[in-house]
């Protein structure tokens, strides 16, 4: 057995400071929903951001003032405060798992991921990448990074491969092993550019992960690298 992997501190700092891309932001918000330790760390980072804001030297204001702001509030009818945040544009999710075979994902998805999975729409299917491994792309992807849900059958071994561009993986269900470290639900594994590794899926159950890969990695390219075999460990 091994101790839990450490929280992805550097990525959390990117997120806390507003510097994470949409796909990484989706992965980290899901991770935060699953990890109390990271929530504490993230809160500390935001507090550091607030304290640093306090340290900034004032920039003199030229054309805005408290009264101009209040006038704007009045003009838009916001004189009294609403009791709650206005609804964000989160898609309504009658069935967040639509299009994803329910056998792949047991139980409830963490909240941030539900809307992302919903965005896949009804026609999206898991794409088989090889025996025992499948993936589906999520809408949070942009030109710099891509988000996929990965599914791998328990006991599958992924052939040793080299990463081009960073890959960040959040375990949603099941577990995998990489370099003697076990990654279970809520854990985040980071493979930097150039990492060579060959993770193995834990035998206990099928593994579902959210993976964010930096361009220029294409999933079709990666699929060619994945040769599936069963391995014992």
């Amino acid at each position, binding site marked *: 057995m091994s101790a839990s992997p450490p929280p992805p501190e550097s990525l959390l700092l990117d997120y806390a400071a507003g510097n994470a891309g949409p796909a990484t932001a989706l992965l980290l918000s899901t991770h935060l*929903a699953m990890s109390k330790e990271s929530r504490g760390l993230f809160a500390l980072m*935001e507090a550091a951001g607030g304290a640093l804001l306090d*340290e900034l030297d004032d920039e003199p*204001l030229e054309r805005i003032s408290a009264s101009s702001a209040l006038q704007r509030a009045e003009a838009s009818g916001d004189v009294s405060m609403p009791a709650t945040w206005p609804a964000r544009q989160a898609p309504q999710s009658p069935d967040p798992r639509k299009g994803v075979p329910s056998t792949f994902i047991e139980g409830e998805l963490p909240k941030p991921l539900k*809307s992302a999975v919903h965005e896949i729409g009804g026609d999206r299917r898991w794409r088989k990448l090889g025996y025992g491994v499948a993936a589906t792309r999520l809408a949070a992807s942009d030109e710099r990074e891509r988000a996929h849900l990965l599914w791998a059958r328990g006991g599958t071994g992924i052939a040793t491969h080299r990463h081009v561009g*960073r890959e960040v993986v959040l375990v949603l269900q099941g577990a995998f092993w990489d370099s003697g470290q076990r990654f279970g639900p809520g854990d985040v594994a980071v493979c930097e550019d150039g990492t060579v590794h060959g993770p193995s899926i834990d035998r206990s159950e099928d593994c579902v992960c959210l993976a964010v890969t930096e361009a220029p990695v294409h999933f079709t390219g990666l699929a060619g690298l994945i040769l599936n075999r069963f391995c014992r460990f």
Partner: protein
Amino acid sequence: MDRSLTAAKDRAEHVALLEAIVKHGSRQAFSTLFDHFAPKLKAYYRKGGVEPMLAEDLAQETMLSVWRHAAKFSASIGSPSTWIFTIARNVLIDHVRRQKARQGDLNDPSLQPPPVDIADDLVDAQQRYKTLRAGLVKLPKEQAKILKMAFFDHKAHSEIAAETGLPLGTVKSRIRLAMQRLRDDLGELE
């Protein structure tokens, strides 16, 4: 006077001002908060590379959110500065997203970090904030520099490595050490 002491006093005052906005819709309280924070918010946006006039617009937008959502601030879980910082950050993310909107639908609520509770084993928020301020001042320069590049220059940690020429592993360990120090400082309060 010790800056962190001043800050702790400010914090108590800012909490009271937010409460006055919630309870009485106090314009006076809002004005005082505005005069303190809007110039800092402008500085924050300017550091992020936003033009001066637009930086004022965003500062105003942030302060309007403070007015509208003051009831969402909870004194027990943090400082007004932290709360206002998170609003400012989200306003900036929204702004960048609007600029990029033509490139595709980035209308994803998960882009904005959710509000997160400060640790459950909370000691007095006031003391905590004072300690954090003092801890940030005491951080080794190379660690503080990385935090400032993240929060103000809006560089992801990989970009910080590329820009400073430091190995990625060094940047990561400095971030880890900085957070460890801050956490240890706060841990001593318990």
